[in-house]
C-alpha cells in the first residue's frame, strides 16, 4: 500500500482500493476502517454502556423491587406500579406536568417563531435587537427564577402594581393554586433564545427567489408565510418542538428553586412529575418506587416521541427528498 502511495501521489487512494479489490482482499481495508472507527468512538461507547445502557436497564429492574439504597433489592413484581396508580400525588404531579407541557409547548413554539420572524425583518440594527431578544436565555436559570418570583411578588411586585394601575385583577401568581402554573409558563416564555436563533437560521435558509416569484403572482404576506415559510422551516419546527418537549417532560429546576422561596408552595399545584420522583428517591430513599416512576416517565416520553415522529411525515417537508 505504501509503495503504491509513494509512486503516484494524490489519486493513489482510489487506485489502491481498486487494486485491493482486484486482488480479492476487499474485506481487509474495511475491517481496518471499522477497527479505527470503533477506536475513535470507543470513549463514547464506554460511556454509553456505563452511564446509559446499564442504568437504563437497572432502572427497569429496580422498578420491580423494593430497593431502598442499602441492603438488597427484593423482587416485588408490579407492586410499585400498582401503588403508583393509587398514589394521588403521583397523579397530581403527572397532571401538572401534562398541563404545563400542553400549554407551554404550543405557546413557546409560536413565541420563538414570532421573535425569529421579527428579527428576520429587513430593518437597521437587527443585530442589536437579536442580542436583546437572546439575552434572557443565558441568564442562569436560578437567577431567572429569583427575578420572576420578585417581579410577580403578590404584595410588592412590580407586575401586580402595574396591573392594579390598569384596573386589572392582581393574582398571587406563583403563590396561588390557579395562577402558579401560568406563572411558570411565563417564566418559560422569557428564555426562548435558543429555539429563536434556530428558527432564525431556518428562516434565513429559505430561498429568497421563492418569495419574489410568489409576490409577482400576487400572493399576500400571509399566503407567502403559510405556503412558503412554514413548509420550508417545518423540519426546524419539528426539531425545536422535540427539544422543548424534552425540557417540558423533565421540568424540575424552576419548580424546585421557586419552592425554596416559598416552602410548601401553593398546595400541590406546583408539584411536577420529576420533582415528586426526586423527592421519593433522594429524600425518602424509595429507590424502587421512584425507579418505577422513572421508567414510566420514559415510556410516556417514548410514546409521545413516536406519535410526534409518525405525525411529522404528514407535516414536515424535506426539500431534498422531493427531487
Amino acid at each position: 500500500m505504501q509503495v503504491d502511495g509513494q509512486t503516484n501521489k494524490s489519486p493513489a487512494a482510489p487506485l489502491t482500493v481498486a487494486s485491493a479489490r482486484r486482488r480479492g482482499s476487499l474485506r481487509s481495508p474495511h475491517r481496518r476502517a471499522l477497527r479505527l472507527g470503533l477506536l475513535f468512538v470507543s470513549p463514547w461507547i464506554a460511556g454509553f454502556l456505563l452511564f446509559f445502557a446499564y442504568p437504563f436497564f437497572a432502572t427497569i429492574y429496580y422498578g420491580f423491587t423494593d430497593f431502598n439504597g442499602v441492603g438488597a433489592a427484593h423482587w416485588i413484581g408490579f407492586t410499585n406500579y400498582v401503588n403508583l396508580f393509587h398514589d394521588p400525588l403521583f397523579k397530581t404531579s403527572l397532571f401538572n406536568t401534562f398541563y404545563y407541557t400542553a400549554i407551554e409547548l404550543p405557546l413557546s413554539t409560536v413565541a420563538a417563531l414570532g421573535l425569529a420572524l421579527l428579527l428576520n425583518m429587513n430593518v437597521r440594527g437587527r443585530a442589536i435587537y437579536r442580542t436583546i431578544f437572546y439575552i434572557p436565555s443565558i441568564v442562569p436559570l436560578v437567577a431567572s427564577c429569583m427575578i420572576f418570583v420578585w417581579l410577580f411578588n403578590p404584595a410588592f411586585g412590580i407586575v401586580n402594581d402595574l396591573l392594579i394601575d390598569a384596573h386589572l385583577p392582581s393574582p398571587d401568581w406563583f403563590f396561588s393554586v390557579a395562577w402558579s402554573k401560568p406563572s411558570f409558563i411565563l417564566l418559560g416564555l422569557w428564555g426562548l433564545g435558543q429555539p429563536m436563533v434556530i428558527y432564525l437560521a431556518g428562516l434565513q435558509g429559505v430561498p429568497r427567489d421563492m418569495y419574489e416569484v410568489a409576490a409577482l403572482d400576487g400572493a399576500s404576506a400571509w399566503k407567502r408565510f403559510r405556503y412558503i415559510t412554514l413548509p420550508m422551516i417545518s423540519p426546524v419546527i419539528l426539531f425545536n418542538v422535540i427539544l422543548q418537549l424534552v425540557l417540558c417532560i423533565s421540568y424540575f429546576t424552576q419548580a424546585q428553586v421557586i419552592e425554596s422561596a416559598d416552602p410548601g408552595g401553593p398546595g400541590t399545584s406546583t408539584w411536577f412529575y420529576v420533582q415528586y420522583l426526586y423527592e421519593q428517591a433522594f429524600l425518602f430513599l424509595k429507590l424502587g418506587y421512584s425507579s418505577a416512576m422513572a421508567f414510566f416517565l420514559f415510556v410516556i416520553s417514548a410514546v409521545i416521541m413516536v406519535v410526534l415522529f409518525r405525525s411529522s411525515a404528514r407535516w414536515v417537508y424535506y426539500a431534498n427528498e422531493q427531487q
Partner: protein
Amino acid sequence: MPTSSSRSARRFGGSVAKHATLIAVSVLLGFPLFWMVLTSLKTNPQSLAVPPLWWPHPFVWRNYPEMLSAVPFWRFVLNTLMYAGVTIVGVCVSSSLVAYGFSRIRWRGRDVLFQVMVGTLLIPFFATLIPLFTMYKNFHMVGWYLPLMIPTFLGSSVFSTFLLRQFFMAIPESLSDAARVDGANEFTIFSRIILPMAKPALATVILFQFIYCWNDFIGPLIYINNQVWYPLSLGLNLILGTYTTNWPWVMAAATAATAPIIVLFFFTQRTFIKGISIQGTGVKG
C-alpha cells in the same frame, strides 16, 4: 412625483412600525433584568415600598459587598470554575475523538451508532439517574464533582460531539488523503491536521460547556451535599431560601451571577449564535 413620495412615506411608516414593534418587545424582554439591577441598588424598605419605587434613591451600592460577605459567594464561583475547567478538558478531548470517528472514517455501522447517540438526547435525564447515583455511592464518589466530571471524559456531551462532527465533515477529504499518502496514521491526521483546523468549533464547545456548568442545577443538587462545595447555582438557591425577605440582596446575587455571563456573551456573540444555528442545520442532514 406624488406616487413616489407616498411610496417612500409608506416605506418610512412601515419602518417606524417595525422598529416600534421591535422596541416594544425589547422593553418587555429586557425589563426583568432592568428591574433586577434597580432592586439590587435599593435599601430593603425602599424595595418593599407600595406602590413600588421606580428609581433607587440613593443608589445603595453596599448591597453588593454585604451580600458577597454574608454568603461564601466567591467560594461558589471558584467551585463552579473548577467544575467548568475540568469538564471542559473532558469534553474537548473525548468529544473531538468521538466526532472524528463519526465523521472522518467510513466504517460499517457508523451512522446507526451516531443515531443511537443523538437518540440518547431524547431520553429523560431521570430515567437513568437512580442506578447511576447508587453506582457512584457504592464507589464513594457522592459528595464531590467526580460523578459530574467522569462522564465528560467518555463523550457524555452529545451536543459537543454533534457540533464537532458537523465541523469535521465540512473539511475536504483530500486533506486526509494527502496525509495518508505521506504515510501519516489516522491519529496523526486527527491531532496534527483536523484538530488544529477545528479551533473555532472547539471555542464554541468550550463556551457552551462553560455556560452549561455555570447554570447546571440538577447535577450538583444530586451529588453535592456539602455547602463548601456548592457551585453558583446551588449557592443562589441557598441565598433565595435564606434571604427571602431581603430582595435587594437576592437581586444583587442574581445580578452578580448574571453579569459575567452577559459580558461573556457580548464578546463571543458570533461564536454563540453560530454554535446554536449549527444545531438547527443538522436537522436536514
